[in-house]
């Protein structure tokens, strides 16, 4: 073999090795093959009998419940449903790749409203209003049963684009016992928060961190830092639609985030995601945290937590009396209907069934979660026993939840990522908060003006 051929073979090998992309793992299809409708029901009851739809769901307790209850739906309607359940982090790219190739593979996709704006912008999803007004296929659809804030969050330009599956807000969690022991009042402002964190750290001789928050670069730290951005009176986007992260309020928010974590936070906080943050608090190694309302369920679960019953819940503190928007989040995950779907009516039947109160109430005994979108399910006994400790504060946080808590525009993912890097740089003292935010703001505005 001559030298040229040998080189060629080697470079081919190298190329083929390098070009191999990132395989997506963890896509387990939970299709429920059985349960074909028995022929006894009258054909008129099942106008969509024999239709087949494919649904992409997020790995979440609600999805587990839907999967368990699915045979009921297939029996009732004769529609065959293929469920694919994938983790949240793979969900959007999987959906977008299928949407953008116009494959029509998924009739329904479940996702976060942050990505819903991208779906609507790309023209991938169908408004639901005409389906919802068709009474013959909307027997399961009860607008009044959805948490109103959740349903509103699914509307863009007054059109309904999705049905809420679950949602959450953010609140302050604190250790009642430690607060009592050290004589601390529940923080109302960020100054109070700093003072409380200082007191705990000093009086416990550094044994207990004053506060723990997420520091991991990206959506993790942005999701919590945004509380401080709004609470100090800042905002993501200004009236011109450009990013507003160079404002003095935003700089103050980042300076505060950095100071409180570096002075009174736990070691390693810069790599803390939701999980690490939650675990540290549950183990009683931190006196306060601000995070998603769903964490309440973990705090009160004796199998998970060593601080059951010791946690107080309060609205997130704010510094200014005139915020440009609420400082607690409103995150909603819902089901969207693909424009390419061949069976839109059948898909609508499934969406309304899966989010209806009967199924949500049943989910309370299968795999309960505090984020249910049905008001009736929140009155359920299982909900109250499990989540009663924080239910009222959670509902208050949801009522005050800010739909613009994260930027709600098609490019939000990239803006969040740029900002997450800035927060991380400031936390590690690689850049001053002002410089880090200036850099992120520049990148964001370049992106936004490149339309």
């Amino acid at each position, binding site marked *: 073999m001559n030298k040229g051929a040998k080189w060629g073979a080697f470079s081919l090998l190298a190329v083929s090795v390098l070009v191999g992309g990132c395989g997506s793992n963890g896509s387990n299809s939970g299709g429920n093959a059985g349960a074909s409708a028995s022929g006894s029901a009258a054909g008129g009851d099942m106008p969509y009998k024999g239709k087949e739809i494919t649904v992409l769901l997020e790995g979440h307790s609600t999805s587990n419940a839907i999967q368990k209850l699915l045979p009921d739906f297939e029996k009732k309607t004769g529609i065959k449903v293929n469920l694919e359940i994938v983790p949240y982090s793979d969900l959007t790219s999987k959906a977008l790749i299928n949407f953008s190739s116009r494959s029509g593979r998924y009739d329904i996709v479940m996702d976060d409203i942050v990505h819903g704006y991208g779906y609507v912008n790309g023209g991938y999803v169908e408004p639901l209003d005409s389906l919802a007004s068709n009474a013959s296929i909307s027997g399961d659809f009860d607008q009044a049963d959805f948490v109103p804030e959740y349903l509103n969050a699914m509307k863009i330009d007054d059109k309904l684009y999705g049905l809420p599956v679950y949602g959450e807000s953010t609140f302050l969690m604190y250790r009642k016992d430690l607060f009592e022991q050290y004589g601390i009042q529940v923080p109302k402002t960020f100054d109070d928060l700093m003072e409380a964190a200082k007191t705990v750290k000093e009086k416990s001789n550094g044994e207990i961190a004053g506060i723990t928050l997420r520091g991991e670069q990206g959506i993790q730290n942005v999701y919590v830092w945004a509380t401080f951005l709004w609470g100090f009176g800042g905002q993501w986007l200004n009236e011109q639609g450009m990013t507003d992260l160079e404002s003095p309020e935003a700089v103050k928010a980042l300076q505060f985030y950095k100071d409180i974590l570096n002075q009174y936070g736990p*070691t390693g906080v810069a790599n*803390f995601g939701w999980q690490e943050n939650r*675990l540290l608090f549950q183990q009683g190694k931190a006196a306060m945290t601000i995070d998603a309302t769903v964490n309440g369920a973990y705090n009160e679960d004796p199998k998970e937590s060593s601080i059951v019953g010791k946690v107080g819940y309060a609205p997130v503190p704010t510094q200014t009396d005139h915020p440009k928007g609420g400082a607690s989040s409103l995150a909603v995950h819902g089901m969207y209907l693909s424009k390419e779907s061949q069976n839109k009516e059948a898909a609508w039947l499934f969406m309304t069934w899966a989010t209806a109160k009967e199924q949500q109430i049943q989910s309370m005994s299968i795999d309960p979660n505090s984020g249910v979108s049905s008001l009736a399910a929140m009155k359920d006994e299982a909900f109250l026993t499990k989540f009663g400790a924080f239910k009222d504060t959670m509902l208050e946080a949801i009522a005050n939840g800010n739909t613009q808590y994260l930027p709600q525009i098609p490019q939000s*993912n990239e803006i969040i990522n740029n900002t997450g890097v800035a927060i991380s740089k400031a936390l590690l003292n690689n850049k001053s908060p002002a410089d880090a935010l200036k850099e992120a703001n520049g990148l964001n505005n370049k992106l936004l003006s490149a339309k």
Partner: protein
Amino acid sequence: MIRQLVNRSQAWILPTMLVLGVMSAIVMGYSIYMAVRDINLIKSASSFVGADNFSALFQDARAWGSLSRTVVFSVSATAVELLFGLGLALYLNRPFFGRKLVRTLLLIPMIMTPVVSGLIWRVFYDPNNGIVNYYLGQLGLGDKHNWLGSTDLAMVSVIIADVWQWTPFVFLILAAGLDAMPSEPLEAAEVDGASSFQRFYHVVLPLLAPSLMIAFLLRIIDSVKTFDIIYVMTRGGPSLATETTNMYAYIQGFNNFNISYATVINLTITVIITFLFTTLYARLSKARR
């Protein structure tokens, strides 16, 4: 005539070359198509932009930073793995009780899925509950090390995890090389009175050179591609400290949905790496001749 073809070794490589060639050409062709457009998954249409993506890349400081971190990661991880792998192979290349068991146990990290080993290391490194800090504390070396949460240590921590996983692979190749080594040259050297260092340096090492080169090339190509453990352990953070080019391309492609730009990043690094390695390979094989 068939006999003639069979005798010529090229004929046997032909099918493989064909398949590899066609596959690479398709992937390459489509990549180039994507590279000259501005495909973003959240926009419904894309248009031809020529070399804009490439010129954007040359001005992208984050991309160049990630390239230098890729070099740091690959070179140091590979070097340490070769060193440890060689040491282990030499040390275990003698008869002792339980040798087979020890060799099998050594391979466990290698057969573990990288995502799983990344998760395990993330738990090990946990600054407040992890066993790394616990044992260091027991040894009096301090228990507050901030492994993944500081710019100085994060890269080192990720490299340690990579070394833990892939040293066995180097060991495996080198141990096989040692097993296959003829004993005569060593015996001859011993008879001639060569010291153990001389025997290692002048006899064992040259004979092991082909295995070392294979291990080096496989490891360096693989470590440039490393994605899973970084994704799981740090997501490229904190403050971009562990963001390699692959990780950055992932963020651009699957977080920001800039598919075209992500393709350009990967194409560029592929060209650089292919050029580097073909040159390196040619140099190394020439040096051996």
